[in-house]
């Protein structure tokens, strides 16, 4: 059986891992390459690295880090953050990234999803969708949640699938940083409405949250960051617990 994936996410700024609460108030937590290796040894199924640098120097540092990750890590990893052109994505591919994750750029220019999938294959293209509930409707937001778009979550997800995305990473901005659990109901509905894999993000606080997500078939993988970075949840322990609940997990 295809295993449910546990995916730690590292936000990287100027070559260092940071994690914010609701994307604000960044705090350093460690070396991204070392952390990736440590997570892989603990049993992480994939790693996501997001570049949150705001400067050209920061972006160049990130590219070097990607090469170093590819050299040292023997499991797949996705990179995202600020990818806005075929050239950006190609440079990351050549540096050794397995997948790129597009967010704001896909909203601004959906043809980028199509062109990247056509050139490098759907398996290379993840579309990250951030959304929050506004008057009962899930509205897609960009720029770390600061900007609302005209797009509705379910319509947008279907559109990026049709454009060739190979996977969707959905973050509920209402749940992100709260540690109160994933947006299961919405994720379930989203997962059932698309035919590509769905990764859940935002809200993981304890082991139960992961079980709830997988037992209810809400997503194909679960992404989390602070609970892993601050040692609140150990990935090996988490996977053992999930396996004991008969969830398909790679140990």
């Amino acid at each position: 059986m295809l295993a449910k994936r546990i995916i730690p996410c590292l936000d990287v700024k100027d070559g260092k891992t940071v994690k914010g609460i609701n994307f604000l108030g960044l705090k350093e937590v460690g070396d991204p390459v070392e952390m990736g290796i440590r997570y892989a040894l603990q049993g992480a199924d994939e790693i996501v690295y997001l570049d949150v640098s705001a400067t050209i120097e920061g972006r160049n540092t990130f590219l070097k880090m990607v090469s170093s990750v590819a050299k040292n890590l023997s499991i797949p990893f996705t990179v995202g953050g600020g990818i806005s052109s075929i050239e950006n994505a190609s440079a990351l591919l050549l540096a050794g990234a397995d997948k790129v994750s597009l967010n704001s750029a896909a909203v601004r220019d959906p043809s980028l999803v199509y062109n990247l999938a056509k050139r490098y294959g759907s398996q290379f293209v993840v579309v990250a969708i951030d959304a929050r509930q506004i008057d009962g409707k899930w509205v897609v937001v960009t720029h770390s949640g600061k900007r609302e778009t005209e797009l509705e979550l379910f319509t947008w997800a279907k559109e990026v699938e049709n454009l060739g995305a190979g996977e969707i990473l959905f973050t509920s901005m209402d749940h992100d940083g709260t540690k109160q659990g994933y947006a299961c109901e919405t994720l379930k509905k989203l997962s059932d409405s698309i035919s590509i894999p769905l990764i859940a993000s935002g809200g993981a606080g304890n082991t139960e949250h992961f079980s709830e997500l997988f037992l209810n078939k809400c997503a194909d993988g679960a992404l989390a960051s602070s609970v892993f970075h601050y040692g609140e949840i150990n990935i090996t322990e988490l996977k053992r617990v999930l396996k004991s609940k008969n969830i398909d997990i790679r140990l």
Partner: protein
Amino acid sequence: MTVIIDYNTGNLFSLMSALERIGTEYKVTSDPQDILSADSVILPGVGEASNAMSELRQRGLEKIVPIIKAPVLGICIGMQIMCSSSEESDTDCLGIFPNKVSRLRGPGIKIPHMGWNNVENTKSPLFTGIQDGAYFYFVHSFAPECNELTAATTEYGSVFSSALSEKNFYGTQFHPEKSGEIGEKILRNFIEINF
């Protein structure tokens, strides 16, 4: 010396890094002489079957790969184009393995098949020292059907060949270079095959 065949199908960085991690010397080349004199040959590949075949033909390698005497390992698309044909863009392939490659099908499955899945019924020196049912990393939408050359199976929607083996030719649908330590073990087993 191990040769990685360079035919412009995707990034070789992961594979090169994996070989470096297990301490194997390699050369990346599309030169027929180098390929035919190598101790072992890896045919990698991501992307699409017809494009991979056309890149191979442009380099005249469609006639070289089938006559290699050393052990050959096709990975993902690399294995698929060693089969007889692919349903992807209706492509005629090398025919080293008689298997047909068809699109993954099954009720409610998500495509691509992406992530870690069990590799079972293993029978090939590639899997020496590896437990039956171990998890490997897959990313694909097409796969070879099963027949007597099937060296391992995986279930996703239906059962397909996750590894093939015929004489000195081997193939894996999963990515050993992305499958952690157990993947490195596959690569090491392959390099150590003396044919």
